[in-house]
């Protein structure tokens, strides 16, 4: 499709900031549009993975472990294979190669070969002519387990060296230890007028996408595998499937179906995906699996339960002289994204309020529970909860209004933080002022009657991770464009629409550049055979990265068509304009061609018209080991004020309204931006008040509530009103200035509610979820003259490694670790696929 000329043009380059075409006002970008898939979704025509039916299809079920931690002594499948209708039964020995999303954590198996690590870990898979028969066959498989000691909590993991859940990691059941120090932290506290320490705990919760994960595999006699799946990351599934199944990647085609919600829960390659592929290869028939809701709770990869300690020093004249943050993450049974998650619990504290010196220590522990991973906000809602309450407490200590305190400390735009994150546009000040005015903060804070209160919190999030999950120097997103002589344009991109509207963003941008209607654009996405790689729908990267790739491809197409149209019309090329499906002379708008005619002129001269675009994020200034997590082409900012009503007799917290201002850079489509903001508020509200993954430590560590009835999430009756302000402070790195919106607005919600509870009833709930029981305990404690607080009071001893010391930019640092430090230095420069500093 692309000729050699355009291929050369597409050589991966560092990000080039682009402006909108200057000669005309934007027609599509920034105006409300229907999503390109809206009609299909409201008529029930969208085909999700479980909607696929193929001739001769078989149905698969997984047998899952009933033991939380055990060796598999023996598996007997002989009875199951004889059941009429059963076509194949496989166990761990049939798929022995491990996989995992991160190169450093290849610790998962399709089916456990020798050890099970949580209740729900799969040990065998059956394919049969019906789901009923497959389920019946599971009952005929005998597994003999030899129990091992169960590790229930990260505190237990820290002090238990044997047995180890995995045989890798720095020690015992610690998966990852991080110790980074930017500037001398003790000096920072010595410089302070006031120092305070706080403990926080953020409970685990899960994505609860309404669509259960499903996958269909079809092995063709031509030795090619096709795998349809409800995945956010078809490229990573492609890599994992090829590896485990020992197939050339060129013989594996992964198609991500539209996701019925993702939120990070469909970002890992999963064992059920590989299992149906293997079963299809064995039987020669298509095989489908759809997880039950209970199984989705076992797949999990949700929010890491995180214990936190933070100590900050501040001066009366408004400086944070030092901040020391410690986190302990409950990782569950496997690595998943956990190394990145652990880094993220320490990465973004510095991008909202300027910190002179910063120290971060993070530990991730293995426990015998479903693995934790990336959930909306990935690793940052937990520290943001702690930080924003901590700031609220510091403001009270100093007698300052919390809004003023934050405004005093804002990180300046176009600056570099203590941990070497490059900030571009920074609209947080505008966000704070918007919600302070909108919510009438000055009339309410500390002035409402007992039982009612307001709380403020802020946040920031990345617009895409600056580095890929596996080390490579190729683009993060690619687009191919095909121009049809009928005037249609097809966009091919590996990006995956999980409901956020990424398919639509591609169409809007291409239509804008080429002056055609959105309906003239066809979008083909998320198919590893047909589309160039996009790394996936995670880290809020898609609008910025695939949007920039689409913009580049469209501008190249425009240039080709404009050149030929100029020749045909006999006008200088800089007078050629594109609008209303026409290509015309701006000085004599009647002189022109239809867009289709212009494509035909170009095609007659050049042959088939196709272009490509690519996007690679700019290089980050950080050069120390661990500098790979946190950099982003652009940071979004949010400020939120929550109003609460607390019933002091029951501890029940009701949130009538939240005001949120979000700095999105530029809305590509304001309707979908509003939807992302409101959806984020909703999910933050659920995390703040009710959502929690709970396990029974005394009963085999089984999940207490693997159902949607008992896992409480907000219904229409709990959802609050939301007043949204969209702040548009365009970032030069975003397409048309756009930054992320899908994750950032969740982050300020839990701490804003916590701060509002304090304003309402004078007690601190330093733990999520803030259930009525916890609120009531704090209220009762206060009534008894004790500290009016619910939350953790200690942090276990962790054998931290020697810190990697990095001088700050204002100390003359160059982003590298100080020379005395052994393993840092230029580590981030080395293209080692196994080194975790490269992972986002």
């Amino acid at each position: 499709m692309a000729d050699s000329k355009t291929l050369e043009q597409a050589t991966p380059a560092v990000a080039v900031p682009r402006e909108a075409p200057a000669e005309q006002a934007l027609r599509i970008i920034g105006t409300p549009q229907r999503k390109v898939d809206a009609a299909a979704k409201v008529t029930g025509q969208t085909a999700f993975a479980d909607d696929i039916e193929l001739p001769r299809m078989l149905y698969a079920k997984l047998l899952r472990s009933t033991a939380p931690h055990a060796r598999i002594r023996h598996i007997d499948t002989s009875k199951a294979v004889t059941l009429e209708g059963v076509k194949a039964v496989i166990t761990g020995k049939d798929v022995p190669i491990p996989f995992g999303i991160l190169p450093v954590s290849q610790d998962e198996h399709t089916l456990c070969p020798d050890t099970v690590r949580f209740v729900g870990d799969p040990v065998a898979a059956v394919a049969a002519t019906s789901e009923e028969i497959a389920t019946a066959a599971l009952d005929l498989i005998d597994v003999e387990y030899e129990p091992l000691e169960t590790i229930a909590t990260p505190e237990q993991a820290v002090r238990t060296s044997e047995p180890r859940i995995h045989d890798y990691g720095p020690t015992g059941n610690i998966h990852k230890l991080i110790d980074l120090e930017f500037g001398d932290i003790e000096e920072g506290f010595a410089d302070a007028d006031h120092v305070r320490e706080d403990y926080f705990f953020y409970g685990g919760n899960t994505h609860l996408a309404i669509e259960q994960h499903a996958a269909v595999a079809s092995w063709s006699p031509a030795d090619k595998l096709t795998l349809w799946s409800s995945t956010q990351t078809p490229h990573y599934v492609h890599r994992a499937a090829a590896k485990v199944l020992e197939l050339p990647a060129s013989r594996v085609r992964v198609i991500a179906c539209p996701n019925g919600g993702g939120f990070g829960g469909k970002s890992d390659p999963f064992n059920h995906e590989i299992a149906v592929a293997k079963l299809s290869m064995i039987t020669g028939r298509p095989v489908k699996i759809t997880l039950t809701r209970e199984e989705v709770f076992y797949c999990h990869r949700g929010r890491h339960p995180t214990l936190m300690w933070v100590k900050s020093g501040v001066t009366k004249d408004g400086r944070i002289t030092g901040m020391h943050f410690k986190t302990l993450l409950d990782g569950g049974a496997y690595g998943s994204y956990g190394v990145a998650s652990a880094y993220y619990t320490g990465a973004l504290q510095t991008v909202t309020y300027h910190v002179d010196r910063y120290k971060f220590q993070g530990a991730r522990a293995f426990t015998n529970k479903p693995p934790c991973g990336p959930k909306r906000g990935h690793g940052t809602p937990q520290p943001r909860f702690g930080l924003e309450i901590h700031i609220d407490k510091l403001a009270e200590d100093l007698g300052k209004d919390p809004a003023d305190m934050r405004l005093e400390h804002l990180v300046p735009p176009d600056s570099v933080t203590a941990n070497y994150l490059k900030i571009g546009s920074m609209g947080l000040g505008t966000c704070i002022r918007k919600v302070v005015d909108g919510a009438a903060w000055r009339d309410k804070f500390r002035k409402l009657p007992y039982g009612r209160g307001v709380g403020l919190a802020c946040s920031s999030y990345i617009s895409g991770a600056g580095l890929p999950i596996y080390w490579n120097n190729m683009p993060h997103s690619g687009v191919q464009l095909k121009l049809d002589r009928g005037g249609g344009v097809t966009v091919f991109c590996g990006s995956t629409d999980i409901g956020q509207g990424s398919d639509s963003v591609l169409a809007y941008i291409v239509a804008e550049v080429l002056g055609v209607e959105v309906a003239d654009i066809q979008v083909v996405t998320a198919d590893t055979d047909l589309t160039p790689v996009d790394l996936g729908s995670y880290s809020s990267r898609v609008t910025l990265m695939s949007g920039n790739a689409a913009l580049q491809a469209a501008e190249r197409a425009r240039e080709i068509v404009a050149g030929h149209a100029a020749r045909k019309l006999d006008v200088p090329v800089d007078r050629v304009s594109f609008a209303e499906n026409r290509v015309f002379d701006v000085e004599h708008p009647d002189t022109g061609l239809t867009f289709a005619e212009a494509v035909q002129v170009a095609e007659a001269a050049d042959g088939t018209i196709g272009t490509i675009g690519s996007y690679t994020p700019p290089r980050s200034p950080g050069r120390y080991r661990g500098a790979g997590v946190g950099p982003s082409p652009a940071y979004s900012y949010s400020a939120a004020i929550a109003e609460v009503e607390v019933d002091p007799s029951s501890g029940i917290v009701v949130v009538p309204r939240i005001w949120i201002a979000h700095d999105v850079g530029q809305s590509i489509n304001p309707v979908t931006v509003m939807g992302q903001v409101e959806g984020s508020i909703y999910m933050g509200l659920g995390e703040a008040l009710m959502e929690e993954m709970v396990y029974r430590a005394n009963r085999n560590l089984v999940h207490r509530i693997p159902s949607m009835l008992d896992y409480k999430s907000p219904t229409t009756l709990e959802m609050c009103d939301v007043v949204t302000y969209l702040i548009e402070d365009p970032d030069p790195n975003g397409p048309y200035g756009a930054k992320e919106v899908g994750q950032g607005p969740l982050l300020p919600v839990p701490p804003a509610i916590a701060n509002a509870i304090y304003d309402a009833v004078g007690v601190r709930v330093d733990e999520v979820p803030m259930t009525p029981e916890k609120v009531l305990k704090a209220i009762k404690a206060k009534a008894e003259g004790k500290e009016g607080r619910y939350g953790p009071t200690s942090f276990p001893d962790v054998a931290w490694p020697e810190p990697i010391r990095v001088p700050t930019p204002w100390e003359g640092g160059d982003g590298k670790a100080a020379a005395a430090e052994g393993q840092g230095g230029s580590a981030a420069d080395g293209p080692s696929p196994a080194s975790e500093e490269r992972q986002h």
Partner: protein
Amino acid sequence: MASRRPDAPSKHQIQLVVNGEPTEVLFAPHKTLLEVLREDLGLTGTKHGCELGECGTCAVLLDGTPVLSCLVLARACDGAIVDTVESMADGPALHPLQEAFADLGAAQCGYCTPGFLVTAKALLETNPSPSRDDIKDALAGNLCRCTGYLKIYEAVELAAAKMRGEQVEPSDESIYGRQ
């Protein structure tokens, strides 16, 4: 389509009217209405989120009333009138609720959308001018993880107004936020 277990009883047959069409269907007797719609009648517009009656995703109209099709045994539906999301559009013309959901982004991932649409349709047939609280009450059994429900309320209100013959457009605040 799917094979039976060796000990499975004979298939059951019923007659019903599905989306306006008289239909005869033969199915394994334990099947729910959800399974018969999706697997035996090919009507995959109706989705499932739990198959335990917890999420509202599989809602369909049974004789005009929203029910959770995962909790209804198909064999109990002999002679019933069943309407799914596939029945809402009038030929190529979308139902006003479908138009409003599309215009306001009330369908993000779209997975829960069919359940919300048929439940809202039943509401508007009995209450053409529902208050915001009426809408919340009617939709309280449907879970949505994407939207936070707000765009869904606005879409139901917009559709209701249009169905009453009013000339209305979405408010600027719902599209652009508050200024």
